[in-house]
């Protein structure tokens, strides 16, 4: 057998490999897999690359002259420098002593009155016991405002300072009735 004949036979044998094809429907699946891969690639890409691409796309869609590009670039640089500079100037230096009042936070004022200290008990004849209590301002104000809102607002703290009497642990209603003689 000559070399040419051998060559032709070899070529014919190698052409048999053209029949080796993937199963039917394979390329549809491949297309789906490529789409999936593209989405995965997109998620893996860093944010700055995406931002850069969007900027490039924006400029490619809006065709501008070279002067406009230069102007836009200058504007961006100036704006960036302005922001950068202002952030530096706002920082207090080590030697400058600003107002120190705000640095010390005042302690919160507790408006509740300690009942144990402000409460005193009186014992009357017959074993009756009277406890005199100065309630907290807000307690009285709230209770009064429920009954007489407008009056409570007008009198304010004054009504709150009125003493409250308790006999045998039963509170006595000291509030004024709407009926007056």
């Amino acid at each position, binding site marked *: 057998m000559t070399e040419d004949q051998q060559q032709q036979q070899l070529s014919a*044998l*190698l052409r048999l490999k053209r029949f*080796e094809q993937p199963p039917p429907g394979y390329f549809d699946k491949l297309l789906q897999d490529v789409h999936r891969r593209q989405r995965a690639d997109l998620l893996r890409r860093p944010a700055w690359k995406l931002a850069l691409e969007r900027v490039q796309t924006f400029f490619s869609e809006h065709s501008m002259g070279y002067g406009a590009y230069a102007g836009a670039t200058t504007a961006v640089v100036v704006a960036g420098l302005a922001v950068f500079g202002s952030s530096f100037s706002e920082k207090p230096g080590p030697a400058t002593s600003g107002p120190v009042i705000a640095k010390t936070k005042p302690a919160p004022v507790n408006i509740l009155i300690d009942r144990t200290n402000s409460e005193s008990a009186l014992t009357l004849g017959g074993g009756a016991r009277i406890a005199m209590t100065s309630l907290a301002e807000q307690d009285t104000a709230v209770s009064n405002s429920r009954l007489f809102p407008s009056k409570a607002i007008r009198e304010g703290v004054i009504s709150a300072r009125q003493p409250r009497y308790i006999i045998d642990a039963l509170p006595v209603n000291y509030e004024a009735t709407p009926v007056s003689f």
Partner: protein
Amino acid sequence: MPDSPESTTPSEPTSSADEESRRQDDDLVARTQAGDAGAFDELIVKYSPRLYGLVYNMTSNHDDTHDMLQDIWSKAFRSITTFRGKSAFYTWIHSIAVNMTINFLKKRTRRTHMSLDDVDSGIHHDKDFVELAASSTPVREANLNELQKRLNEAMQRLSHDHRTVVTMFDIQGMPHAEIARILGVSEGTVRSRLFYAHRQLQNFLSEFLS
């Protein structure tokens, strides 16, 4: 040189068909670059069968081929904004495929199992394949399965460069000039590689050629 590309490329497209195909490709590429993902899908559908043959005959493994095709198309999609149309899209995508496959083969550890027998046993029932196989080898009673296996083994014993040119020329039917453009080498280099690759294959497959 014993190579005769005309004899092994019976279905070479005419130049007008090539030009029409290239115009279509240019249009699809331009639409893809403008953000039309459907246009890129059309390119995938058009070229995947040829790329599959190229990659599969270089790797001899269907799973690897499937993974490689996804990588190739992903890379092509990422890079298509840089495609300026200096070469045909056909050449460009084949260059990506060949380079990525050769890099993959360099990294891949030696496989002991070839998937060819498992996956392609179906073609033994293909009438055209059986007839062509019977006429291609003087060993008429040759076991087709054994023939496929030996062909595959012979291909895998070639170097990456030799396997690439054999795949593109003998199996895919590309002309020398196109192979040279894709590989970025001269036509003389392509012919030289084919010559030595064929000599090796004749030795590996001597029992089917005598």
